[in-house]
């Protein structure tokens, strides 16, 4: 196996950078187009006071100047002050929320991968059996149920009724269990379906028939030949899945009242906290862009034909 060429790598990195810049610019305009402003609180402000506030946050400048000011501070890694959380900068807020979001995301992805691959492979190895049908029926049900429904149901059952687990917060590892499961469920469903399909396809391949004919054991056959090949679609799904995981975490963090950046994003959007929303978008888009980059590279590494084709 060989590494992808430098030119391919550079091309991908530039593409990721441009994507982030375009996204940041579009969101910069969009947040300013939404009705209301950052200082429309529950109490209304006299004009003089609002003028003081707008001047303090440079909102009285022309929008282009604001945009350039934002980009130049972004280059130095400064995401600016939060309009709503006046006692914190956006950098401080993201530093405070990122560990929670990252833990939740990683835990959910691990749950989703383990359960999805196990279920998918098992069903794929016994195609059209009753276990396959049952598993896939349950899987479809899981896929069809949005997190918005499963998360409150999990809270109701395991926290409110059984009192086994906390209903929210992020004070300890127990607090992460329910949110991670809620977040993982739809992804484990998608992974299981992908995995099942590709296992079924792979089993029909010629080289497997040869391997079987040469007397390779079932376990070895699955572990060495079937799984690596059937994981390819799962791998390419991980890029979009991590993006969807982020949007999912916005919902889950809100339902479980977890102090992650997804919750900041929602609160920021509701409060017209321009800089906080922008900050979270920068982090999210940088994360998704680098993840897509990694997937591209991993793909090129697993299947060098892709690079040659390009």
């Amino acid at each position, binding site marked *: 196996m060989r590494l992808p060429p430098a030119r391919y790598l550079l091309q991908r990195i530039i593409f990721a950078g441009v994507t982030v810049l375009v996204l940041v610019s579009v969101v910069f305009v969009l947040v300013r187009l*939404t*009705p*209301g*402003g950052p*200082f*429309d*609180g*529950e*109490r*209304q*402000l*006299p*004009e*003089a*006071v*609002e003028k*003081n*506030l707008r*001047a*303090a946050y440079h909102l009285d400048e022309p929008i282009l100047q604001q945009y350039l000011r934002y980009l130049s501070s972004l280059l130095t890694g400064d995401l600016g002050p939060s309009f*709503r*959380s*006046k*006692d*914190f900068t956006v950098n401080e*807020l993201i530093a*405070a*929320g990122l560990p*929670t979001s990252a833990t939740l995301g990683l835990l959910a992805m691990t749950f989703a991968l383990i359960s999805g691959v196990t279920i998918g492979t098992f069903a794929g190895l016994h195609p059209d059996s009753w276990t396959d049908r049952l598993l896939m029926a349950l899987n479809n049900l899981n896929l069809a149920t949005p997190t918005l429904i499963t998360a*409150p149901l999990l*809270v*109701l059952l395991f*926290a*409110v009724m059984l*009192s086994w687990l*906390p*209903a*929210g*917060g*992020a004070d*300890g590892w*127990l607090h992460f269990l329910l949110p991670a499961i809620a977040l993982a469920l739809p992804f484990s469903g998608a992974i299981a379906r992908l995995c099942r399909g590709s296992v079924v396809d792979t089993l029909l391949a010629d080289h497997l028939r040869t391997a079987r004919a040469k007397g390779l054991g079932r376990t070895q056959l699955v572990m060495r030949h079937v799984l690596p090949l059937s994981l390819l679609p799962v791998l390419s799904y991980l890029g979009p899945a991590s993006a969807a995981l982020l949007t999912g975490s916005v919902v889950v963090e*809100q*339902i*479980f*009242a*977890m*102090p*992650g950046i997804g*919750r*900041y994003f929602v*609160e920021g959007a*509701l*409060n*017209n906290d321009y800089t906080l929303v922008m900050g979270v978008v920068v982090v999210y888009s940088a994360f998704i862009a680098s993840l897509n980059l990694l997937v591209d590279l991993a793909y090129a590494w697993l299947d060098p034909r892709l690079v040659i084709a390009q």
Partner: protein
Amino acid sequence: MPLSLVYRQFSLKRCCRYISVTLLIAWAFSLQASSTEETLYLGNSGEPGTLDPHRYNLRLEETLLNDLFMGLTTFSAQGQIVPGAATSWTVSEDGLTWTFNLRKDLRWSDGTPLTADDFVYSLRRLMNPQTAASLAYFMYMLDNAEAVNRGKLPETDLGVYSQGPHTLVMQLAAPYPFLPERLLYPTAFPVPQHIINKVGAAWTKPEHWVSNGAYTLAHWQPEAFIEMHSNPHFVDSVAIQRARYLPFANEQAAYNRYRNGELHAIASFPANELARVEKNNAASLRQSPLLSMMYLVFNTRRPPFDDVRVRTALASVVDQNLLADKVLRSGARAAKTFTPEMITAYQAPPMDHSHMPGDLIERAKRLLAEAGYDAKRPLRITLRHVSGNEEKRVNLAVAGMWRQLGVQTQLQHGTMNAHFADLRQGEFDVAWAGWIGESNAEHYLGLLASDVGDVNYGAYHSAEFDQLIQQARTHADVQSRNKLLQQAEAVALREAPVVPLYSLASRRLVNPRLGGWYDNPRDIHPLRYLHFATDQPRP
């Protein structure tokens, strides 16, 4: 068939493993339970934007600031106004000069003595345009306040000064008998000059925190919790030594965690759970009418809402009792006047009850017909409200009431911010609005004066009303002031620039083990009065 030895060993091992895991989990939970014994866990209605008393804007921030600071006046356990940092005060005959005598044992939480100069510094900081204090106008009654806040006069011209370390004098521009109530707001709290001079804006970080209230800020993890510890230099002792406020923008999340035993008290729970709570959790339920007014406002800039006939026709058929008792069923109280009935010192103008409901509809139809609207040419209205279940139900019901007159109402809703931004800019026909405020009529009626700016959303202008309000503002005596306000309110009820709907009710869940909790119309519950039932209450 007997089990094989291997299987038995295996299952024994497995059992042991399960038992140890279960014990570990139980232990983790018991740890949590025992820490709950020491720390008070409270739900607040959201994440504070700041803990700087001069930059705050929200009620949920007031809740925290009331525990961290103490102003010249403060709240009793029952939510009444009592002396705080000031032991007593005197007012000059013209009502313009207020002299406050401060307690001699006042100290900041770092032990530094707190003097009248700290209050002078704080009020000047509030008015300084650089502070960008959003609620600076709360103290605009001080002489020269508005000019200082606009940067037209130096802050030394502000009507506040000290006479020695324990005497503070406030000079007002016009009499304002409700000053002790206004001093309850964090805008009038002292802030530590000696720390702000040293660390600047970072003074609100837990590591630099110094305040004069019963508690100090120990930890603040955004969107997770704010932890307070008791202040050893506070003028009184407190029973609760540590407390954590958790932010809940979502009532359902707070309710779930209360039911799971993770919190001792929550700020609110979903109104549709009220019946269930009354049945299963009656001992925890705390409901109290809240000093507030929810109302509909007509945009008098736009025809036909500049026509008093149209406004009175629409206002007269709104059945407030139906809204409060049948539609909302959340403890809200029907309001027939624009001033909440909880204001004890004020008597709202008498209402005309001579019309029967059937008559009202006939009369309203007649008024609309006079204004040029009938079945052939129906009045079409866009009614705007804040997104939310309760608000939607209320406004749907109102639309139904107007349908009896042949009026066609279209509902529009938006987020809180967008809604009030549009209201201030006059972008509406009729809109739902609300005000949670003080226990004086002027606070509410002032919203309809033409000189208050865009808080008079509907741009109501009445020379008679304005004149009465202006006259009232010159009186230092509350009673004569209230008499004029009553006449002003009668004008407003007759001309119907707004339709009073209902006063809200606070809806809390409080662990019955928590003592010292008194329901009150301000819904204020300072931590320093609370105690666990097992502890000795504060003397």
